[in-house]
């Protein structure tokens, strides 16, 4: 097995003493870092495509090709400028590079050479690959091409197997779930998705789907409920598939990219529109044509389409959680460019996540009340919830006092409305069963006023005022860095924070977090608040990279550490190098995180 061969090379030495890699991960082989794919283009040109590991780059001026010892003209794209103190800017490629050769013969062997480095870590010798023009098969040819020391007069040419270990990139065992057979990959991701359905990421989906079903609950049959939920779930899964294609094309996370004010506002607006229709105000508000499109009506073709639209957008904008399977699939797609395999795995992940929703939508819908005042009330309840979802989403982009005002109006308004309904009963008899209604109404009004007061006074912690009862998580606290984390939002601040940690000789924890990341909130109040964890983190410098706004700054930070999205926790050793084995992607539990801390301390 090739992997075993690579290990043997490392192991081989140890002549009379022990030799241990100082860092568990060790350097990556050049073949792992720079992956070459070759295709024949439409105009018979030979297309080269390199996918490059994050943190590494290829030099544009080191790309070269030859056929039968004669150099070929290799057309390359503009690279990114990198300041070289010697030559001024040189051009390099990050993440991917491409080049082509026009008009190649049908047979023969093209040698292509490329060279690159890992930022601040390592520079690789030139790598040469041979491409058989008849089959486009790529094989290792390093040592066959002219290499610097071969051509020198000093006869310093090394043995041709000079970095043979570099060829051993075919790492044996199958562990990721993305290797192995296609079918088992899909099933694995379906299973992951099903498990993920029970994480907080999916909670916002419930009122959206339920609300949509309630819209048409008047005559909702089992089949209709199934059809609507299925279209919602299929669209949601497709959205995940699209994530994969996006990652393959742009090497980024579409979900995070969609956390723009415009997208979030539009989605919130959709929810408000839906909510208004729940209150029966809808027909007065919008023209009929738009009505039919936006609010699905039972029996109309638009309803299936509406469900699909909601499912697709919800997946992208409402619940942008990053989980290990999602991150693994996205990274896989971005690195290999294998959009088909990655996207279909993501699609299955979405299907798995949607399965419980589908069950709920199909069977839950049939047990919903068929008609009457109850249905009216339930619609209104969902209307309130949908406005809540809209507010929750807007809190990602609007200043907190505004959001506080919004919540206070919603709470007080709901309370007042409940009171109004109670008073407007045909026979306003004060019965015992109305006591909880009145109490709830009063509580909501008081809570609303309380929040309004807070908004005016300039402090705002919407759910914290309820935290004493253990009902709600304490959110928003970390803006002040109360939990010992230093908040950074750009690379300069991050560098300064890391430098400070290094100066103290302390390991560093960087927590990638965002306001819109529900999983992050959950971890902050469980794992990171855990007493044992806090104690273990005593000697660690804590940095929180706030990537709430998906701007160039946060993208840079994320790209630098190859972070797909929050929540991701990485440890740097006192030298500022990441301890790769200690990385946590997605939600974790205290025990696992303690193991990561231990790994970080070893590293």
């Amino acid at each position, binding site marked *: 097995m090739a992997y075993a061969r690579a290990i043997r090379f490392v192991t081989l030495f140890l002549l009379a003493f022990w030799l241990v890699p100082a860092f568990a991960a060790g350097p990556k082989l050049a073949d792992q870092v720079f992956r070459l794919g070759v295709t024949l283009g439409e105009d018979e040109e030979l297309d080269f495509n390199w996918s490059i590991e994050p943190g590494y780059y290829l030099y544009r001026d080191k790309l070269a090709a030859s056929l039968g010892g004669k150099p070929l003209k290799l057309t390359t794209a503009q690279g990114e400028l990198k300041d070289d103190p010697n030559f001024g800017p040189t051009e390099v490629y990050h993440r991917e590079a491409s080049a082509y050769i026009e008009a190649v013969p049908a047979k023969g062997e093209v040698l292509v050479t490329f060279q690159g480095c890992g930022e601040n870590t390592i520079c690789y010798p030139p790598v040469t690959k041979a491409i058989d023009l008849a089959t486009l098969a790529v094989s290792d040819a390093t040592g066959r091409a002219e290499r610097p020391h071969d051509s020198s007069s000093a006869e310093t040419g090394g043995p041709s197997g000079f970095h043979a270990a570099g060829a051993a990139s075919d790492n044996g065992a199958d562990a*990721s779930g993305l290797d192995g057979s296609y079918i088992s990959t899909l099933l694995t991701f379906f299973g992951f998705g099903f498990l993920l359905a029970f994480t907080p990421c999916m909670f916002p989906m419930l009122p959206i789907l339920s609300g949509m079903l309630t819209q048409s609950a008047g005559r909702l049959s089992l089949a209709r409920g199934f059809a609507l939920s299925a279209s919602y779930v299929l669209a949601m899964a497709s959205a995940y598939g699209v994530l994969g294609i996006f990652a393959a094309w742009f090497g980024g996370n579409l979900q995070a990219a969609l956390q723009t004010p415009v997208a979030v506002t539009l989605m919130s607006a959709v929810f408000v529109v839906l909510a208004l229709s729940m209150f029966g105000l809808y027909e007065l508000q919008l023209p009929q044509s738009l009505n039919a499109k936006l609010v699905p009506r039972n029996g109309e073709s638009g309803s299936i389409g509406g469900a699909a639209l909601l499912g697709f957008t919800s997946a992208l904008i409402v619940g942008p959680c990053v989980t290990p399977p999602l991150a693994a699939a996205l990274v896989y797609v971005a690195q290999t460019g294998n959009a088909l395999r990655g996207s279909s795995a993501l699609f299955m992940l979405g299907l798995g996540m949607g399965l419980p929703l589908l069950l709920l939508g199909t069977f839950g819908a049939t047990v919903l009340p068929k008609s009457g005042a109850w249905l009216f009330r339930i619609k209104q309840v969902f209307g309130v919830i949908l406005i809540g979802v809209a507010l929750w989403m807007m809190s990602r982009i609007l200043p907190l006092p505004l959001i506080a005002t919004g919540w206070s109006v919603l709470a007080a308004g709901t309370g007042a409305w409940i009171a109004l309904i109670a008073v407007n009963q045909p026979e306003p008899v004060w019965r015992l069963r109305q006591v909880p209604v009145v109490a709830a109404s009063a509580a909501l009004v008081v809570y609303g006023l309380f929040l309004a007061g807070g908004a005016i006074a300039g402090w705002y912690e919407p759910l914290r005022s309820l935290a004493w009862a253990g009902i709600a998580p304490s959110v928003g606290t970390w803006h002040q860095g109360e939990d010992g984390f230093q908040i950074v939002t750009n690379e300069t601040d991050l560098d300064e924070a890391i430098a400070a940690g290094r100066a103290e000789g302390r390991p560093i924890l960087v927590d990638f977090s965002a306001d819109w990341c529900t999983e992050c909130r959950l971890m902050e109040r469980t794992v990171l608040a855990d007493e044992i964890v806090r104690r273990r983190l005593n000697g660690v410098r804590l940095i929180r990279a706030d990537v709430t706004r998906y701007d160039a700054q946060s993208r840079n930070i994320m790209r630098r550490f190859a972070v797909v999205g929050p929540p991701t926790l990485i440890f740097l050793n006192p030298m500022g190098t990441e301890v*790769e084995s200690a990385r946590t992607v997605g939600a974790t539990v205290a025990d696992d995180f303690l193991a990561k801390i231990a790994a970080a301390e070893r590293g």
Partner: protein
Amino acid sequence: MNDSVSRNTFLRLAGGAAVLLLTKTFARSAGNEVTRDMILADPEAPIGGNPDGDLAIVDFFDYNCPFCKKSATHLERLVKTDGRIKLIYKDWPILTETSIVGAQLALGAKYQGKYLEAHRALMNIPGYGISREQMIDAVRKSGIDLARLDADVQSNADAIGGLIKRNLTIAEAIGLQGTPGFLIGPYKVNEALTYEGFQHVVADARARQRN
């Protein structure tokens, strides 16, 4: 090919890291036996720091490697402040055509007792893609007799070539993937380090040597 990417990724994500406990064995490469003495006691290899130090650091570098140059300043500083480190220079020209020129210039300067001067002059040209002319210019400015250097390189071509070849063989045998590479006591580090990084590994290496 693609499969190994996802495996790596998954391993990283899953946090799987294997610690290899290595066993004593002999490496053979292209018929050349690599011995401990070849690495630590090659009589031709230039030495810096304290020759009687308690810890040996073997430095594999290339004069076209930008990170080697940054790292070298940190290492030289540590060697100086520490005072008990023996630094063994392994010219390892693998990056570009002119890398070999740089190695010849530096190793040729050894014959007039000025290896370190030439080495530092070459390492002080920042960046990559250094031209032959720039290298020669830098060496001249460091106070080296170029005419003598030229003659020494000519007459000792076999010795210089042989040393470079041995260095290439050693680097292959110990599995270095690129420049820079360091052997610090029992540790192999195949990436550029900062001053603190070197300090850290040196402390670990001494601790391990005591055990």
